[in-house]
């Protein structure tokens, strides 16, 4: 018997679909769309509700914060990629059972609250903390870590590294091994195979990993508060401070708005970059 055309699936009447989805649609409009409109509204009004450009103008005072946040999260993201990619690659070469166990071990800390993870890091690195006591016990000079920029970046890497490893590992482990064999057969050495075959094929994993590390890094405020020792003011800290007092809600809203736009632009650039990569390969 020849493959007959599939009969079109019978669907329940369309209104049913809308009834089922309606609670969600209402919820989305009320609690996702409306709040964003409120951010816009607050960003462009003053405390009395009158239209103003003042909040946007006030952003000039925070240029330094934006630059610092942006550069710190870019550094953290790049470090995560440099550490995470080889790690995901190494893990993907193990036996399936070992892969499962190691991925579970890597994911486990993600189940612990970010506050706890950051706090434990601070407890170790602090001036009177575990590490410095250990160094002094060995007769070495204690090092001042908490309160420096590297400490904040390290905190971001420490907290968000699994977000980088997970998507990259899932792409690499699903990759058709015959591509690698074919590359080797056609005369690529291991390094060439990595850069010409494996890396481009895992572009989608890299993109989602970068997104998943960059967004929480640029918006964090707890990590910089704890590991920055109060000396680093990132965008997250600034926003958090504005929302302590109703008077500064408007400025806070405008900073949030700009951060959102900044992230959107970064994402758009990233996606464009990945599309180009994709077409070159295929």
């Amino acid at each position, binding site marked *: *018997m020849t493959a*007959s055309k599939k009969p079109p*699936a*019978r669907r*329940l009447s369309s209104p*049913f*679909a*809308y009834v*089922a*989805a309606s*609670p*969600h*649609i209402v*919820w989305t409009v009320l*609690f*996702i*769309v*409306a*709040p*964003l409109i*409120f*951010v816009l509204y607050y960003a462009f009004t003053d405390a009395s509700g009158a239209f103003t450009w003042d909040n946007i103008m006030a952003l000039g005072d925070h240029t330094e914060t934006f630059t610092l946040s942006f550069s710190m999260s870019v550094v953290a993201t790049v470090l995560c990629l440099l550490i995470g990619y080889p*790690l995901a690659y*190494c*893990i993907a*070469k193990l036996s399936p059972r070992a892969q499962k166990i*190691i991925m579970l*071990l890597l994911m*486990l*800390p993600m*189940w*612990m*609250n970010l*506050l*706890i*993870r950051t*706090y*434990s*890091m601070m*407890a*170790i690195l*602090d001036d*009177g903390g*575990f590490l410095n*006591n250990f160094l002094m016990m060995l007769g070495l000079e204690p090092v001042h870590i908490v309160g420096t920029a590297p400490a904040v970046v390290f905190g971001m890497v420490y907290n968000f*590294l699994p977000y980088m490893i997970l998507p990259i590992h899932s792409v690499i482990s699903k990759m058709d091994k015959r591509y690698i064999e074919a590359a080797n057969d056609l005369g690529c050495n291991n390094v060439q195979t990595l850069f010409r075959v494996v890396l481009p094929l895992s572009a989608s994993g890299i993109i989602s990993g970068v997104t998943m590390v960059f*967004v*929480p890094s640029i*918006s964090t405020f*707890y990590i910089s508060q*704890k590991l920055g020792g109060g000396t680093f003011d990132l965008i*997250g800290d600034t*926003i*958090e401070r504005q*929302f302590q007092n109703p008077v500064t809600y408007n400025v806070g*809203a405008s900073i*949030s708005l700009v*951060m*959102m736009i900044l*992230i959107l632009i970064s994402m758009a650039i990233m996606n464009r970059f990945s599309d180009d990569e994709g077409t070159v390969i295929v």
Partner: protein
Amino acid sequence: MKILSKTYIALILAIMYIPILVLMLFSFNSTNNTGVFTGFSFYWYQELFRSAETFAALKNTLILAVSSAVTATLIGTAASLGLHRMRSKFLRGTITSLTNIPMMNPDIVTGISMMLLFVFVGTRLGSTEKLNFWTLLIAHVTFNLPYVILNVTPKFRQMDKHLPEAAQDLGCTPVQSFFKVELPCIMPGIVTGFIMAFTLSLDDFVISYFCSGSDFQTLPILIYSMTKKEVKPDIYALSTLMIIAILALLILSNLSNGRDDGLARLHNWRSRVREKVQTRREAKGGGAK
């Protein structure tokens, strides 16, 4: 090469786990020194259990996690069903992208945007406590919804379109076919979505921080206010307990998954229905010849 890669994996894992292990160790310290281990004691645990605040926060966290996960699972599953059946591609696309906004946006933006809404509406209504349990619940359901939909929608897509059709041919009403045929198929997605929503809600700090009032404190918020003050090992004790609880939960869920042959059973059952669909199709085709 192999040894090198294994060393590398071990090194990264060690760096990830050492802080947590040190924290757990120092929760048993006899003094409040967080740098030198002076002696083993349960002092900080006793201290922790003496505070009513901890238990209130624990209770609040669990109430919030269960109620927000249940609400999000119900709304999200219905939405997945609706989206799956919806014919307008444009509307489907729009709803999906809007739903995903809280997942893409930084938590702090989701938090403050909802806070602005709650404060604005609360002021208009003239309420004294603008941020309370209900605003927190709304916030948690909102950021849980995309994860439920993300887990359930693929199950609808993977399901054989002919399954509900076969069920209806065999005498089911549409409602019966949903509950007897479609629901078992999408169940794994619903369960994963629910667990994800539950854990996300347990773990959330940033959004809760902006959307909660002073009368309803969750554990992450309690930890935050504790770490704002001086460093004391009672936070270590609380963290250790939370880590152990999460480990126990994970091991339990893994054990139940390991013994669960529900998926295999479902698979067998589905292939039986698929056979039926096949024979029916063949019979139709044979008739046409």
